[in-house]
């Protein structure tokens, strides 16, 4: 699992590459837990290369959800593979999080 952060003016794009399970969740958690992440207007998560997400991986997003909302930082997922989207959907997260098909739509949110 590789997490690459690409900051621009007021948007931070996180590229997830690989399988997000219990062991790699720590890497992502470290990235999301950084205090200055709340200075961005939007955090876009590019899931194009995210092939699998476990409950521990979901837990990382869930644990930061409230914090992002409170700071009015939008968390947007895009390019999500169907299999991964299915996991979000079953858990009901699709209703709670912004999941869009592509980067252009993600930027438009």
């Amino acid at each position, binding site marked *: 699992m590789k997490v690459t952060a690409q900051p621009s003016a007021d948007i931070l794009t996180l590229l997830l590459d690989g399988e997000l399970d219990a062991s790699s969740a720590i890497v992502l*958690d470290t990235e999301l837990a950084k205090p200055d992440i709340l200075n961005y207007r939007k955090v876009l998560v590019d899931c194009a290369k995210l092939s699998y997400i476990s409950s521990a991986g979901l837990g*990382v997003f*869930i*644990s930061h959800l409230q914090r992002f909302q409170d700071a009015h930082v939008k968390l947007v997922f895009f390019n999500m593979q169907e*299999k991964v989207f299915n996991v979000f959907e*079953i*858990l009901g*997260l699709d209703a*709670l999080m912004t999941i869009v098909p592509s980067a252009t739509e993600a930027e438009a949110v």
Partner: protein
Amino acid sequence: MFVPQRFLSLLLPLSLLSWVALLLSALSHSGADPWLGRWPEWATQLTQGIFVLSIFLHYRYQPSPLQGQAFVRLLRRLVVGPGLLALGCVGLHLFERLAKDQPIFSGNGLFFTSIYTLNLGLFVIFLARTNYAWRALVLFRSSTRLQREWTLFEILLGATLLFRLVGVNPPNYLGIPIVVTLGLYGVYLSGHQKWVAYLSQRDKWRAALLQAVLLFGVLVFVQYFRLTQYDPQLIAPEAQYAFLLLTAFFSAFYALMGLLVTFFNMPIADIIEQRRNEILRLQRLTQIIQRGQTSAEVYHILLESAVQTVQAEAAWLDLEPGQARLDAAASTFYHNLLPTQADALREQLKGHELPAGKFITNGLNIRLGVEGGTPRVFRSLLQLPLRGLHYTYGMLHLLKVDPHTFDREDLNILQTFTSQAVLSIENLELVRTSLENQRTQEELKIASQVQNSLIPKNLPTDNWFDISSHSLAAKEVGGDFYDFLHLPGRRLAVIIGDVSGKGVTAAFHMAQMKGIFHSLMQENPLAKTERDKFPVPSRFMAQANAALVHCLEKSSFITSSLYIIDYEQGGFVFARAGHCHTLYYHAMREEVFYFESTGLGLGIIRNETYEKHIKNQFYDYSPGDVMVIYTDGIVEARGDGGAEYGEDRLKQRLEECYYLAADEIKSFILNDLNAFTKGYPIHDDQTLLVIKFKSAQPPPLA
């Protein structure tokens, strides 16, 4: 060299016979008894030669006089045996001198010759015993080469004996160099005094004394033969000069060398002994330390051994509290110091700006006040850290009053001590950790048993439905759960859930969820209608979510589905909180499908808005319908190439087996799952419930 035992047992009688023959031969020359006549010269030589040879051979094949390292015992026996012979010899000589003036003995060649021959015999025995005692000492821990050299020495000496026997009397220009060469060879062999190093200080004095006595004994004999040689009364044959001279010389010289070596060894014996004691102490330390049950014991032994080895006047051992693996309260060990005094010393050492690692300093001046006495001043300090592979466990400090008393050697030997101690500490730690692991394993086993008791063993039975269940945890304990509860009005509540994560944390939350289920599914006495006495599934989920806010970790969540089956009405209501979709076989339509419903997992939104995200779904069942409830451990189980089992495959399986009984449907699905995941470890807990509705029949009359 193998010599038959029979031959060896003949040696002593042979020597006795030859000596008697020698005596007779000598007497025949003295003319004491005309009856004897006058024997030829060669007869004297031959009997003398045989006597010397048999005595030497006899002692040669005796067991080694040296037993173990009992050097002093060997010397003592040499003094008490042959030494007394020398005394006897002197006594005989004196007696002879005294008796000479008596008319009866005057000019009596018989008496004089007898005494002389007797002394010669005693001298030969003395030389033989001494020589072979020296052999044992020369060859003590010797090389094969030295053993060969010694054998050569014996052969050469034997050859000189033969000279006389065959009547060859080499001219002086040849004889003297030969004798000198052999003498030098003896000198060379006398250099082998290895045994001296193994003597203790006290034994060295004894050995020196005994050697001096032996030397004296040899001199007595030599002096005797020197004096009697030219005695006009002696009409005895010439002695085997070359052989006796050489052996006497070797005996004396070896004793002299041994004496000198012992003497010159004295000053350095202290050091040698000290080193030997260090080795012994190290051995003992190793043994004791290995027996040490606690780290405190090991540290204590280390400190005491170090103090004894370098004879330190005071010492202390500071331990790193975090690393020392200490099972005792103390983190410092003292020798001949009070804790307060050690504090004072530490303070003073700070002023010296000493390096942090191992070092010796011999020019210190640290003062230690002693109540009611003169202050102690320490001038030498040895400091040594206890280093392990990963940690430094502490620091050893040794102090001496005199300056320049520590050296590199001390440091080296102490370092061996500390390494040994550290090794033991680390071993103890390993043992402790493995014991702890064992205990943890035991506790996990208990946890597993406890959790197992939380899973219902007795499935509800009724003639309206048929239930079968399966659950398997990926680790000792898991986060999956399911439960049943009979509600009044012929209703049955079925709950299934999956806590995010695995192992102990998940197991705790699973137990909580079971508790929440049973406490929320209590009858509400204030409810207006019968149906309101128990919460509907969506209400239950909202209440569970609110309850979980207080007990669920921030990154944990729970997915769950609650079904309340009303078999009087032939329907059920359920809510899905983020849990896997329910698989359903509709008997009338002969169709297998997943219930498509929305619902958010528990613990994701931790406020009252949760209720907006959960819905109830009602469904009427008909007999023959099959409901398959499971956790994601089933559909996400991995097979070849990391492929997931998947919802589609599960659906296909139900399409193939819906007509079976609940238990058989479960087995059918599990067999397929096992075939799919064959050889791969399960990485998530698996739970599978199969409920098959049967045709409504009236309850049996009681």
